[in-house]
């Protein structure tokens, strides 16, 4: 995430009803409010509640984004539900030195052991945070905090207005959950040539 000009591609893994699409939208809106170019869109299909779904975000600091296709080789992968790991290959196409941001109760070391690739790993127990602050295990806004902590793709404060607009009276709790996840996210570099990129 060092080059300012570069196109950054983020793929979200969630389940229908978990709000992956909303997260993607909010992050794109935050980036656009910072004067950047951004795109957010869902994977297009007959989504059912509980079924694995994808959402995508592209962010470019200076150049308009001229690509209209799903993201097959993301720079960043965000996983809203740890149980997806046994169903979906969330690392599919992840660029070398890419970043995985995952919601899990497991320790960083145990999570790391699951992945056998050169990626930077960030983890947070978003489900517990969401249960505590929102009262429901919906982790989409919480995981935005983890994404921002691990990658800095947007400023955390840029998300406040999009969340306010989106959630109205529920916004404050979502913002608090996002902030708490930002604080609690643990990040670990992984692989041998982590200095690249």
């Amino acid at each position, binding site marked *: 995430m060092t080059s300012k000009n570069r196109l950054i591609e983020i793929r979200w893994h969630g389940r229908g009803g978990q709000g992956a699409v909303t997260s993607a939208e909010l992050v794109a809106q935050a980036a*656009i409010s910072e004067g950047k170019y951004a795109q957010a869109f869902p994977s297009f299909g007959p989504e059912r509640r509980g079924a694995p779904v994808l959402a995508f975000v592209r962010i470019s600091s200076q150049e308009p984004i001229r690509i209209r296709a799903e993201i097959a080789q993301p720079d960043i992968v965000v996983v809203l539900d740890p149980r997806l790991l046994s169903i979906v290959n969330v690392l599919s196409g992840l660029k070398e030195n890419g970043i995985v941001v995952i919601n899990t109760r497991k320790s960083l070391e145990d999570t790391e052991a699951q992945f056998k690739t050169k990626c930077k790993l960030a983890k947070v127990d978003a489900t517990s945070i969401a249960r505590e602050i929102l009262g429901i295990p919906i982790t989409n806004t919480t995981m935005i905090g983890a994404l921002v902590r691990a990658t800095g793709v947007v400023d955390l404060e840029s998300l406040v207005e999009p969340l306010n607009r989106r959630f109205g009276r529920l916004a404050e709790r979502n913002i608090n959950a996002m902030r708490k996840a930002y604080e609690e996210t643990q990040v670990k570099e992984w692989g041998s040539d982590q200095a690249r990129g």
Partner: protein
Amino acid sequence: MAKRVGIEVSLAIAEAAKLARADVVAAYPITPQTHIVEHLAKLVADGEMDTQYIPVESEHSAMSACLGASAAGARTFTATAGQGLELMHEVMYVASSMQLPVVMTVVNRALSAPLSVWGDHSDVMAVRDTGWIQIFAENGQETVDNVLCAFRIGEDRRVLLPVMIHLDGFYLSHVIEPVLFPEQSQVDKFIPPYQHPMPLHPDRPVTMGAFGPPIIYAETKKAQEVNLEASKEVILQCWDEFGKTFKRYYSPVESYHSEKAKVLLLTMGSFGETAMTAIDKMRGEGREVGLIRLRLWRPFPFKEIRQAVKNAEALIVLDRALSFGGPGGPVCSEIKAALYGEDKKPKVIGFVGGLGGRDITPAGFEEIINRGIEISQKGSENEFEIFGVRE
């Protein structure tokens, strides 16, 4: 000051209809409809838009209600997509032949069967000959801008024709991206009030859509054709004025590094943006390739197309619809027809791709261009090829 916001393109279109002060919206809200009419319904219900919103029982009725509203002198907007557009079909001819300037955004989708709500141009091509002005947008900004232009063009006294603004299903309709919205005062200045010269009114009876026996029918159709052809001048004037006001410029045929390119790719709709990325890469490698994007589909810009491609050796046309049992893609056949009588013209190579929401990546466009060049040199037994199809 224009406002830059991150917004789903469908919602942005509803906001554009609001800025244009549409008097009447008639729409059918069920799949394959999009958030466009959902957001319009909300804007009206919330009192943010002074509009008569008519929910109807089908797309056929939606277009019928639009005819009545427009005939009574109301600025009329609707939106549809895919199968919904097909159900409107017969009523669409009435809008154009009765000179009712309804503005409609069409979220371009594939047609059943198999059931598909994904994007391609099958729905568009089925309404090609309905007599509407048809403009393609490549991104959210272009969609919003051209919705505003559509009211000004269609309602112009010299035109009085319905206008379709096409945008790719999902690739544009469901994407959040930055859009600049002009001020209400700028839009009010840009789009003068709609005044149909002879609107339906109880005090001043007029006949619309009367019998057309053989003695008059051909003349009405000639007049309709002349009128649609002549609308191009007004479209050009509108885009010129739009450019001066808002600093964003539109043309019937738009070029991208095409001036000295030996090989040209031609696209219509949002795939043009992805194609540009491929063109950038190939040019970076020293390849003499360029891109032509067809924005104005009806009236067809013969002169501009001939001018844009005349120096190329090969013109590779990508269609996102199939004319079954015919010459391949509808856009490619029209391009071939437009160039047939020219002395100096490129070889035209047709591809069909991106059907039913199949992505074409920048690498895919490179493949299409390379294969197109191969066909232009070695020839092919096929009229066209379907890109990326598994056989």
